[in-house]
């Protein structure tokens, strides 16, 4: 799969000299980072020149210092690990359950008609509103947190999978049927590959949702995890540490999104990419 792209005989483009391409990528890096650099400078200066109260909004360098301390002491890692373990377990469980279920429901119109109203109701109930229910029923241990992540991830994946199967181009199905392929082959060779991009949209939505819900759950009742750490730092007036915790969450979110994006591109290589800047 991976090598196919390289074998493509693309129409010959004028070769760029390496100098030009270095300049080009430098320009690209600059364009992408300029706003971030500006925000970082603003963060550093605002407390110093008294725009905000340094006690509640410490300088960036102070936050990074606290962050570094936490990394060295291993404190950050233990919270990071706790959060990531919970989200990964919940996420994988959701994948394992929601994709096969969605494929089945999408394939059988009766199942779709029966279950869709219930799904719509569940989906439109904000997951965080159910957090107390999860805690009442499952306690404040790992089970309740993994469960809420699982719950939050399941719906985007499930609903997108159902939609994906339902929206496979009927002409492709007709074309395959005219070649007399069995139902099983039709499913595995046509329906499934055609559904992959839409399923992945659901997976990415689940990735974002999963972090959000997990952090909230940890803030309310947990003994470790990034969400817990942020509230802990706030209550104990460890303000730089609190910001360091928030930055860690941003990093976690970025990481998850990047990974899923990479995976998505790998599986949807055959799709024309309207944003390709080649």
């Amino acid at each position, binding site marked *: 799969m991976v090598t196919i792209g390289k074998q*493509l005989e693309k129409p010959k483009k004028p070769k760029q000299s390496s100098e030009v391409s270095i300049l080009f990528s430098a320009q690209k890096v600059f364009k992408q980072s300029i706003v971030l650099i500006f925000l970082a400078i603003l963060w550093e200066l605002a407390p110093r020149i008294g725009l905000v109260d340094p006690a509640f909004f410490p300088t960036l360098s102070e936050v990074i210092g606290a962050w570094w301390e936490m990394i060295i002491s291993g404190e950050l890692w233990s919270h990071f690990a706790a959060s990531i373990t919970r989200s990964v377990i919940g996420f994988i469980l959701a994948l394992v359950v929601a994709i096969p279920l969605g494929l089945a429901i999408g394939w059988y119109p009766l199942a779709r008609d029966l279950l869709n109203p219930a799904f719509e109701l569940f989906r439109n109930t904000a997951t965080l509103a159910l957090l107390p229910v999860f805690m009442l029923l499952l306690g404040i241990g790992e089970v309740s947190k993994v469960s809420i992540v699982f719950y939050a991830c399941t719906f985007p994946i499930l609903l997108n999978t159902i939609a994906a199967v339902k929206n496979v181009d009927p002409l492709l199905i007709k*074309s395959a049927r*005219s*070649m*007399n392929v069995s139902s099983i*082959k039709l499913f595995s*060779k046509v329906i499934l590959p055609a559904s*992959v991009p839409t399923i992945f949209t659901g997976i990415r939505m689940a990735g974002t949702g999963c972090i959000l819900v997990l952090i909230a759950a940890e803030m309310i009742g947990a003994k470790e995890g990034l969400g817990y750490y942020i509230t802990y730092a706030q209550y104990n007036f460890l303000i730089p540490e609190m910001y360091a915790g928030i930055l860690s969450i941003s990093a976690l979110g970025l990481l998850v999104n990047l990974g899923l994006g990479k995976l998505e591109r790998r599986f949807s290589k*055959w799709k024309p990419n309207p944003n390709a800047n080649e």
Partner: protein
Amino acid sequence: MPLTEKIRFERVSKVFSIRDENSNRGKKEFTAVKDIDFVVNEGEFITLVGPSGCGKSTLLDLLGGLTKPTRGRILIDGKEITGPGLDRGTVFQQYALFPWKTARGNIEFGLEAKGVAKKERKEQADYYLDLVGLKNFADRYPHELSGGMKQRVAIARSLAFNPDVLLMDEPFAALDAQTRETLQSELLRIWEKTGKTIIFITHGIDEAVYLGQRVVVLSPNPGSVKKIVDIPLKNRLEDADLHSTPEFVKARREVWSLLHEPEFIGANI
């Protein structure tokens, strides 16, 4: 060449039940095609022409075995069509290529359905890619190909599993005039080379006359055969400007007048 019968339509009718707000059962019957009755010979190139709504696509679905006739039957080699099969290959107007497969992968799909071994699949696919002039585009995905190229791949895919009959549903309708002309003559070349029986549906009179040895003129409401016109053109591929020869003009004129008789008025040509 002695004519051998390949396909026989025996008083074929197809009735659909469609929604109707005026009737108390909410359904009414709609006859798409009625009493279709003609014979296609082995190795013949036959075109079906008619305004939209004359049941062209219904006929093709029936031939493909995707639906069953309400009355009558269709025979291929004397055997009734009961379902889809690899003795018939269909080429659709909208290409119907699998976008996640390369040109070669698409061609191999039908071979896989036929149960051809993997190594042989590749050889066959390469042969047919060459036949349609796309040898250098084997590893392209459909979105990287032009409309004409996509349709070439689709034709190669249908030829690859070696069906006796090629069913073509307005395959060139979505292409620009230039590409269409090129593909028409290439299709004739492929037909001469492979000797397939081809049933070609179109709404273009020129296309029907240029390609078909016989043109089946269909009339609408319900779809039925109005007349089958013999086209006495020889050497279609040799005469570069066949369209202005007297024989072509005469045949075209005949089909045109058939399509402009009173029962077509108001129909969409």
